């Protein structure tokens, strides 16, 4: 056995192979020490060395669930890479499961934090993630389908759903998409999203990424499918609607009126962050009569020193704010505060005093930036961040009517989007329809 394995792993110097001889038996052993943990000692070495009893050892081989027959030489390499120990005992081949699982602490949610909801977030370990999920959604009908994706990384992933609730058509199309996945390295859930989305150049995400087990549990109870990926803090949920991206878990925990108010504020913020810079251009440069007289004169006065047309002004400020956001994500935490202070000073005061932008533009920029952070989902928030530039370009050319038409076009586009065959912009889904789907399937 050792020779065959060695021939597969010619240059893998971290592979450990040896022939162990305790005076009675000689067994061949092969494993990667870096992938295996200390369980080898209790499971193999101790029974084989000073506690050796041939009958007991044979009994152990048949009764311990960690031992399995591994007589197919084609699987050996694969097993070794997964952290199994290969043994050749009395001419038969066995594998012993001893994969190393680092002890992972359950982290608190960082990207989607809540005030009073559960603080736990998914970890990068698949089994702990499954535990977190089972903790919240524990029914016999919960189905877990394991998959391996990535030709090099062989990342394990679980497709999880409640088979009583799931729509079989969606499940079928998911399986079809999973078969098509072509990846060498699957390292993050984002890559999986790109692979699963049919048209990868969509303006809006159609698969929801979340680090919150409670969100996954509540979505499972609505018949959605979750994909957990080993090594990723984020689970994928599908099919989703636009409104799922705008839904914060706090909405389910806060009091009724407060959560309604907050979600209205959120939608209002999205509309603002998309249209405000464009409307600034359109109103300032095309139709100043939309303003009230006072604000028209104030803007007029504060713009008097600005040498550039309004859209250049908007681009200057938006470039600064985008650069600031980018910098504060990438920079280490210690340097991060410096960037925000400097940036804040420039955006807040100096740019206006230097006569580069008007006072109102600073307010517009801050409203745009703050409103963008109100969106609970990161990938959706980035889509929205991108959308505003489209609006700005149109506002430059067509003014207020252009903004209105583009907003209409945006709604048409959203209506056209599908997430695994389900309408993306559906205002409400009827439970009866979901049920009838299930019965048909």
């Amino acid at each position, binding site marked *: 056995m050792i020779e065959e394995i060695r021939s597969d792993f010619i240059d893998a110097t971290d592979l450990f192979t040896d022939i162990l001889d305790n005076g009675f038996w000689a067994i061949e052993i092969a494993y990667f020490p870096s992938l295996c943990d200390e369980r080898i000692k209790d499971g193999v070495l101790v029974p084989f060395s000073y506690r050796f009893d041939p009958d007991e050892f044979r009994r152990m081989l048949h009764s311990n669930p960690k031992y399995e027959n591994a007589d197919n030489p084609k699987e050996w390499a694969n097993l070794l890479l997964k952290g199994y120990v290969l043994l050749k005992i009395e001419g038969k081949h066995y594998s012993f499961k001893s994969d190393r699982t680092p002890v992972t602490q359950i982290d608190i949610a960082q990207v989607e934090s809540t005030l009073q909801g559960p603080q736990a977030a998914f970890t990068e370990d698949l089994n702990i993630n499954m535990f977190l999920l089972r903790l919240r959604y524990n029914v016999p009908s919960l189905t877990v389908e394991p998959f391996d994706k990535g030709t090099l990384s062989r990342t394990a992933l679980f497709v999880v759903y409640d088979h009583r609730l799931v729509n079989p058509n969606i499940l079928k199309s998911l399986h079809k998409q999973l078969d098509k996945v072509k990846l060498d390295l699957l390292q993050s859930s984002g890559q999986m999203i790109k692979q699963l989305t049919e048209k990868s150049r969509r303006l809006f995400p159609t698969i929801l990424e979340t680090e919150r087990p409670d969100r996954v549990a509540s979505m499972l109870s609505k018949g959605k499918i979750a994909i957990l990926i080993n090594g990723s803090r984020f689970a994928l949920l599908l099919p989703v609607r636009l409104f799922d991206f705008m839904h914060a878990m706090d909405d389910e925990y806060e009091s009724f009126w407060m959560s309604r108010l907050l979600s209205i504020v959120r939608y209002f913020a999205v509309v603002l962050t998309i249209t405000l810079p464009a409307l600034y251009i*359109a109103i*300032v*440069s*095309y*139709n*100043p*009569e939309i303003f009230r*007289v*006072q604000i*028209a*004169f*104030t*803007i*007029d*006065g*504060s*713009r*008097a020193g*600005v040498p550039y*047309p*309004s859209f250049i002004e908007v681009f200057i400020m938006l470039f600064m704010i985008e650069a600031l956001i980018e910098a504060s994500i990438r920079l280490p935490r210690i340097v991060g505060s410096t960037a925000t202070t400097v940036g804040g000073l420039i955006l807040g005061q100096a740019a206006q005093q230097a006569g580069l932008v008007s*006072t109102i533009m600073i307010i517009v920029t801050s409203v745009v930036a703050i409103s963008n952070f109100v969106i609970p989902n990161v990938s959706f928030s980035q889509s929205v961040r991108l959308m505003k530039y489209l609006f700005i370009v149109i506002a*430059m*050319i*067509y*003014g*207020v*009517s*252009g903004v209105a038409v583009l907003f209409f076009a945006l709604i048409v586009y959203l209506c056209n989007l599908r997430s695994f065959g389900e309408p993306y912009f559906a205002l409400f889904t009827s439970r009866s329809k979901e049920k009838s789907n299930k019965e048909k399937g």
Partner: protein
Amino acid sequence: MRRARIFFSGFALLLIFSISGCGFKDIDKRFFVVAMGIDRGSAPSSYRVTVRLAIPTGNMESGETKTEVETMEAPSIAEAVRQLKSIVDKELDFGHCRVILFGRTLMEDGVDDPINWLSRRRDIQQVAFLGMAEPDAFHVLKLHPQSERYPGNALFLSFGSEGTESSYTLTEYLFDWVRRQSETGKDGFLPIIRTDKDRNSYRVDRVAFTDKEKLRLCLDPEESQLFNISARRYDKAAIAMPYQGTRIVFALSQVITRVSITRDDVPTVTFHIRASGFLEESPPNFMEGDIPKIESRLQAEVNNRLVDLLNKIRGAEVDPYGFGLHYLATYFGNTKDWEHWKKVYPEVVFRVQSRIVIEKVGLVE
């Protein structure tokens, strides 16, 4: 296929970029006209157009605003505006022109042409306030009140309901006036705006009536207020009358009016008015005094004054209340009915039935 697609999308983009919105012009390159005045020019059938332009400043303090008044004479308003553009450094923008004034001499001749121009221009707001300026629009617009916080705001505030709400000030919008000009059986009215004696503020306390062509009648302030109450149901007004040596001031809080017209040879117009309110001034130690008596005295007073006013308006052959329209609307008016109404309108009998309700006597400690 792919190539054709790229070609077509490029072509579409080209087409898109070649069309554009209604003129890109930054707000600081525009000169906002806050008020506009139209007078008769020195030459016959010429116009003198006066515009009050706002010069914005970064921060606005009371009395610090700067405005510029430009005036130009031309055979037509459109030409005058074109020529005005040549003497200012920025593009004229009528988007914020909230007040349009006609000079009195122009009103006496008729304002068909100016109204025509005003309703055609896209950038003239139909919600602009109209007024008649005495002696002419140029002198009114030249006035620079101390209290102005931003250019033109004293004028806006006098007319609109945001600032002062005076029962003597009537408000007329451009759209309403244009409608009244073309409506059968209803005539227009305009507030008269004058400069105050100390030349520091505007004075808007009278109203002018026009028929379909020109100015016919001007009311004095008391009558203007009564017109405002009866025709516009304006309830922030007061009715005063002498009573036992002092004066009683009845402040209105609600006014309801109703008109009924009989179909006789000479129709009788009955004007019902119900006003409720409280006493703002009354004799001392009045307390819960003789309220019914005061009510009936007030009713008689209102009846008399209103009948006088209606007769005066009828005498000038104008119909700002819209009695003619009401008549036609009530009796399936056809052309013959309208001819009949026009013929008999100078002899129409007015009756006023008022009902005054004193709800409380005011808070007296």
